[in-house]
């Protein structure tokens, strides 16, 4: 076996997955067809949930300077995501190149083997292993692995080779994007309807302006290469009257509002994560964020199965959880794309929605949706409101130490957090000590309306979701531990 896992694609999803696998001690090889990072800015923002994820792995400091904001939008309607009361804010102006650089450095430091200039060709899943054929600078080679994960984007070669079904709708509108140097434009962060089209301006780091422009009802044309900047500038002039043709384009691209999702995230020993599993209009940067969270969900599960802790059926939860999350994200980007790209006929609906957004309850609902905080995984029945939800950042005192739920998750292991000094509870987790850290702590004052009010214990999965909570759980701690971390073991020597 050449690697336990081969990951195809060194974008955010592939690099995140590589890091997660390494954190869990699994050897991983990443194949990337481009010899160098592209330097393209692409996705430029992180949702609240991604910021939490990065903080749970200590990655925020690697992102350098970035701006955070509570200003979001839903389909172009301004939305205050501060109403979520999360400890993190969304980040913007982080070019994707910076994100990739940070993730690559992290994964590499953890021991991931990243091989650039290697292009995926074909695969052969024989049931007990998968053999990947790739071509590189030294010719074609075959790589044997236990699992293959395609993180190779919207036009995924892995998806095609493994025969995944990718149904959905084609694009109806094409948007052109250009990152520019040498212009100074008024920001229109949430976009603006102009006669016959849509324009948006965002200021990125380093004095770069991102402009996006689309003409309503003009479907994408078939392009073999990115659009010429002149095309963007012409359209911009037509819709805004402003001439940007003198600017220096850093990156020019075209995208559409096609919406597709694979029907299964796993076929045998081949799995998909990120854009290879779902494409949609990149509204509010939800695509990259969802991709990173796909990998965050998959990494620890794949590792548990490969280590032999958990049965292969744990991987099925990757499909059920992330397929649903992806479908929800697709639905909300479609709803948003109608609001953004629809013409005057949509104005009355926009008007009703913008009235409704004035209610904190509505703002919370939509903000949770665009922030990735509306996810509730099925972890078994119960009434505790945090069950299946992501663990909010909770400052803690554990003994003499000041810590937090976020910090406790950094090793990438399970965490049983005993908030009420309950010795019996801790004893029950004894047999999972090799996979789950047991911490007794005291929480400070909870924020108003905290879902954690009255909760005395939580079991956190490595991805920060609450697998079990007391009180208000229908299953025992032992069965929750077994479900997510595999059967109990008599204490055994650490590997």
């Amino acid at each position, binding site marked *: 076996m050449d690697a336990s896992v081969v990951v195809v694609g060194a974008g955010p999803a592939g690099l995140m997955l590589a890091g997660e696998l390494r954190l869990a001690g699994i050897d991983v090889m990443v194949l990337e067809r481009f010899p160098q990072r592209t330097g393209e800015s692409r996705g430029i923002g992180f949702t609240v949930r991604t910021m939490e994820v990065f903080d749970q792995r200590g990655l925020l400091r690697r992102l350098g300077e970035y701006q955070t904001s509570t200003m979001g939008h839903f389909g172009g309607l301004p939305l205050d995501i501060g109403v979520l009361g999360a400890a993190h804010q969304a980040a913007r102006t982080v070019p994707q190149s910076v994100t990739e650089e940070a993730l690559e450095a992290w994964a590499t430091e953890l021991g991931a083997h990243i091989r650039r200039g290697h292009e995926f060709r074909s695969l052969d899943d024989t049931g007990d292993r998968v053999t990947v054929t790739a071509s590189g600078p030294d010719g074609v080679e075959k790589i044997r692995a236990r699992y293959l994960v395609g993180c190779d984007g919207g036009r995924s070669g892995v998806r095609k080779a493994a025969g995944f079904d990718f149904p959905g709708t084609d694009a109806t509108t094409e948007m052109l994007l250009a990152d520019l140097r040498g212009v100074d434009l008024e920001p229109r962060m949430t976009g603006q309807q102009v006669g016959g089209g849509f324009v948006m301006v965002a200021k990125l780091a380093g004095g770069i302006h991102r402009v996006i422009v689309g003409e309503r009802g003009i479907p994408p044309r078939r392009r073999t290469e990115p659009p010429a900047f002149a095309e963007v500038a012409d359209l911009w002039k037509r819709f805004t009257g402003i001439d940007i043709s003198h600017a220096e384009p850093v990156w020019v691209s075209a995208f559409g509002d096609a919406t597709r999702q694979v029907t299964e995230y796993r076929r045998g020993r081949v799995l998909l994560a990120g854009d290879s599993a779902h494409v949609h209009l990149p509204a509010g940067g939800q695509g990259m964020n969802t991709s990173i969270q796909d990998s965050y969900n998959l990494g620890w599960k794949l590792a548990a199965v490969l280590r032999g802790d958990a049965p292969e059926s744990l991987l099925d939860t990757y499909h059920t959880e992330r397929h649903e999350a992806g479908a929800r994200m697709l639905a909300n980007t*479609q709803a948003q794309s109608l609001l953004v790209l629809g013409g005057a006929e949509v104005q009355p609906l926009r008007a009703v929605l913008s009235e409704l957004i004035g209610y904190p309850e509505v703002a919370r609902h939509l903000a949770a949706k665009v922030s990735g905080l509306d996810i509730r995984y099925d972890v078994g029945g119960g009434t505790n409101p945090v069950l299946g939800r992501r663990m909010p950042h909770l400052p803690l005192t554990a003994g003499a130490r000041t810590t937090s739920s976020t910090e406790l998750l950094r090793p990438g292991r399970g965490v049983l957090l005993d908030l009420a000094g309950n010795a019996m509870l801790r004893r029950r987790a004894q047999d999972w000590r090799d996979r789950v850290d047991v911490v007794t702590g005291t929480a400070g004052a909870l924020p108003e309306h905290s879902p954690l009010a009255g909760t005395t214990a939580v079991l956190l999965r490595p991805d920060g979701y609450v697998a079990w909570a007391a009180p208000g759980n229908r299953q025992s701690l032992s069965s929750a531990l077994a479900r997510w971390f595999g059967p109990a073991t008599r204490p055994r020597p650490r590997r």
Partner: protein
Amino acid sequence: MTRHADVIVVGAGPVGLFLTAELHTNGARALVLEQLAEPTSESRASILHARTMEIFADRGLLTRLGELPAVGPGHFGGLRFDLAAADEEHPYAGQWECLQNRLEVGLERYALDLGAEIRRGHTVTGLAQTGDGVRVEVRGPDGPPYQLTSAYLVGCDGEHSTVRRLAGFDFAGRDADKEMLRADVAGIAIDNRRLQRFRNGIATAYRRPDGTTRLMVHRYGDPPAGDLDFGQVAAAWAAVTGEDVGHGRPLWLNRFGNAARQVTEYQRGRVLLAGDAAHSQLPVGGQALNLGLQDAANLGWKLAHAATGRARPGLLAGYHAERHPAGARTLANIQAQAQLLFGGEEVTALRAVFGELLELGTVRRHLASMISGLDVQERPRPPVSTTLIPGRSTVDRLTDKTALVTGSSRGIGRATAIRLAREGALVAVHYATNDLAAGETVALIEKEGGCAFPVRAELGVPGDMHELFLGLERGLKERTGESRLDILVNNAGVTTTGQAPEDLTPEEFDRYFAVNAKAPYFIVQRALELMPEGGRIVNISSGLTRTANPDQLAYSMTKGAIEQLTFHLARRLAPRGITINSVAPGITNNGGAIFDIPEAVEAMSQFSAFKRIGEAGDVADVITFLTTDGARWITGAFIDATGGTLLG
């Protein structure tokens, strides 16, 4: 110029009829011209929303319309939710069904009762504005064309308004690009469904008790049809649902579209528009009718004032200023709904978002208020003038009630009798000796179109109760066929202007108590035998039970007694739903000689916080309120109606 009416209303649909009634209620004469010879006989159900119900209740119209069944949940663009969410506390939250013909008949009778004239089969063919009025050319069913003049004219003549065209209003907006096809079909068996979504469209079916089925269908992307025939409906139905209805027998075909138009101004000179004449929209959930009736409620009193020269400057302009934005908002909201309703797959995701939001209480409240017309802010209508306008009505809070007001030949009693009658009650005007004065009270009531009869009985003498109740029950039976008494106002009493305590004789003492305390006690005792659930008793006390005046000691003692009567009986009567309360007037002009002396009036005025003497009407209004359903939660109370005299 001699005018045929203060206002000509064109169109005798619900909006025109209600506007006419509002004009009359507020003191203007209206003449209605309707081109149809007969009222609509269509049995279509209309939906009334909370705001409309509130307006109708305020005018006493709900009693006329009879019991209106509540209809199930409403929807926002096809997403079901309960309109009661607008305000769970609201007595009319939700939606209420009234058959269209019942609504029109009820409103027509109401307008006619108020003295309006309605000419059916009369079509407006021309219209000219003069400096101070409007002249219309009319063609009637027979006879030559004729002209009518009025101070104002209102077009309530619907979507294809003639008035709008003749007066040159700009009906801005857009035509329908999508439409729902409707058909009543016999001989088919189709499952009931409400706005069910299919891949290609949306379909509704419901089977009526008579076996016919109402179909509604829209195929996504279909433009409005030219001429509609059943073949198109059947084809659309098949395309959307996969079911064949082609063999059915069509009884009625119709379609409605998502056109959205609104006049840019609701008033041009002396011509105004209300209802569908001013705005046309997709008829979802009855919003169009309700919007129109609310237009009429807003316009009626303003126009009545303007047409009779009583309006403050700018009053009438408030109609456009208030109703144009309200209409625009409703139109926008309906367009938003049309988008959700008619939109195909591209709208599915956004529809789902709205579906999720409708799970939230605030959202349900917001949208239900919007649809129910409860979120419209407008200047309140002033109370209907207390000046008597012969032949004009009332607010009818006491329709079908009967009342006995003792001592109502003059003063507070008379004012009370008049008000109760104005509210629709049949009033027994009791008096002791003054036939002439009692007759005047009855005449005043009858002049207003009310109903009353005199009952003579001297109180405080042997046989007084027998005499009083003989006259009362006879009078009630003659007029209502029964002797039910809903309201008793114990107002009769004797007093003097002043007498030192040491001068009072036992005979005088007994007389005070016989008339002021004993008689009310036994009147209540007898009246309770006639009083149904929901009855009302009001005892007139005096501010003197709270402020010392030794010169009226014995009188004040009797009033103390009557307050005890109120207080203790309240508990006894509550299980029967009967309320009993005391109202205490201060110095009130009862027509006595002293009130003709300016210096005396000036001196007496100083007692009230408002620095004037009370008028009989001031107190009568308070009494009247206590007799209405609105005061159902007050019992055993001492109600200070002294104009602040007791504030010290």
